[in-house]
């Protein structure tokens, strides 16, 4: 129980540090933040008096810690603040953006699982065989291809050449297919490699021959003694996969001109819109910490030795 409490404590420290780090990066980035806000707001060069006004509004002239505190304090009461550019509340805009990104990420993950599980199972049927080598080659190529390139290829093929699917925007539900495929193929590549090595390692465990000689069927062996061991590395990497998924989603949304967290974040960074950037950072950090916390707890359920070793 004490170790679970420690996990929560560690999680909150991570959250505060992340918020502070991004705030500081934005603050110390070269260029005048007030100018960036002004250009985003008025689409024109403005007189110095207006810049001064923006500085006062956004707290750019109060010093780093004061600005950080005046952002953090409302947040603790659940208020994400107002956009420095439009003056509108950040929260509703953020919710809209999430509404676009979540289906994309979930579909991407499902596509990743859909391709990687059968591929890994086929590949490990005969390690070193041609199927295995093909799967490894595909996975390596998939991991090496950047999302923006793959996205453009898919647009060329399915939208331009064949004309089957829409490429840009998010008007209909069909619009999600190409972005999700772009994202999902990348996920499939890395998941295949992890699943493959996890399965191979789990099947190479020294105790399995004894179980076979005890007369336990292949199916029961795979289900009860291989799968749980193979799951451990996959669960480990799932936390990292989530990072990949979010990062990929940002990229893919920009390529496909799709509204969502990615476009929200990129426009906010360009305009030095502190409250918006910080909102996205906090949201992703919370997501990360929660998922990794769940993974830690799941670990302890599968193999209690992990918890004992920590304590």
């Amino acid at each position: 129980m004490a170790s679970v409490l420690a996990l929560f404590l560690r999680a909150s420290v991570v959250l505060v540090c992340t918020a502070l780090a991004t705030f500081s990066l934005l603050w110390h980035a070269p260029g005048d933040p007030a100018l960036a806000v002004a250009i985003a707001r008025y689409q024109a060069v403005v007189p110095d008096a207006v810049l001064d006004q923006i500085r006062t509004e956004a707290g750019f002239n109060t010093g780093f810690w004061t600005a950080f505190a005046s952002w953090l304090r409302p947040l603790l009461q659940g208020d994400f603040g107002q956009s420095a550019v439009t003056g509108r509340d950040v929260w509703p805009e953020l919710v809209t953006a999430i509404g676009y990104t979540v289906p994309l990420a979930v579909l991407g993950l499902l596509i990743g699982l859909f391709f990687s599980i059968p591929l890994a199972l086929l590949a490990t049927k005969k390690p070193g065989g041609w199927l295995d080598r093909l799967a490894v080659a595909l996975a390596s190529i998939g991991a090496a291809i950047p999302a923006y390139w793959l996205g453009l290829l898919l647009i060329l093929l399915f939208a331009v050449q064949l004309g089957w699917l829409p490429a840009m925007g998010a008007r209909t539900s069909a619009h999600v297919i190409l972005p999700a495929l772009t994202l999902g193929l990348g996920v499939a590549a890395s998941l295949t490699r992890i699943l493959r090595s996890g399965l191979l390692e789990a099947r190479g465990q020294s105790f399995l021959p004894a179980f076979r000689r005890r007369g336990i069927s292949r199916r029961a062996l795979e289900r009860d003694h291989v799968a749980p061991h193979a799951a451990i590395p996959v669960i480990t990497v799932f936390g990292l996969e989530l990072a990949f998924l979010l990062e990929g989603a940002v990229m893919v949304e920009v390529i496909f001109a799709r509204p969502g967290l990615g476009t929200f974040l990129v426009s906010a960074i360009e305009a030095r819109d502190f409250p918006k950037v910080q909102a996205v950072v906090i949201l992703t950090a919370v997501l990360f910490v929660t998922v990794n916390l769940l993974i830690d707890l799941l670990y302890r359920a599968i193999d209690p030795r992990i918890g004992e070793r920590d304590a």
Partner: protein
Amino acid sequence: MTIVARGLSVHRSGRSILYPTDIIIEPGERVGLVGASGSGKSTLGHALVDTLRARGQSVALVPQSPDDALDPLRSMQFHWREAERALGLDPDVVRRDALFEALRIEAGDMRKRPWAWSRGMQQRFVIALALLGAPDLLVMDEPTSALDPVVAAGTMNLLDAYLKERQTALLLITHDLGLAAARVSRLIVMDACHVVENAPTETVLATPQTSAAKALCAHRNWLELPC
């Protein structure tokens, strides 16, 4: 039932790691399979188990270390139930308790995973698992080398007592002639993937014929080294 296996041989990557070998073991007999490391004794033991199993004969193997016999992620109860199911037996607490009693497996929480038990108790549990189906032959591969001597001696004595009244034959695989000599009535000596001697224990000890058997006999005891 008498165990008969003829012409056992094993090849791996084009090389013979066991040359054709016949093994005959009477019901209730104790046989030692000895040889230096790499002489092929474990290969022979495993090949024998696999061949007999394929033929549908009842045979069980106890590996060197409990780590090679138990899944660290599964409870002891799971292992037990799984072995019962594999043998087509219904769950029977009385039968289990009788085996545990005979091997003095104490106070083990069956819901715990193997690593929560002491190694000595894990090894006894593995032996109990092996005896569950009352096999015709029990093959033990270096059963004591992973255990403390006191625990190992206790386990071997209990097993001896258990097997005394039964038809289960024992094949004891070990590199240590001293250990085998104290437990078995017949010795099979292996060298370079061949069986080189097969005779009653006293005969091998008194008049070893081959260089492998001579080396094992000469190095049987620490205090009688040919220095």
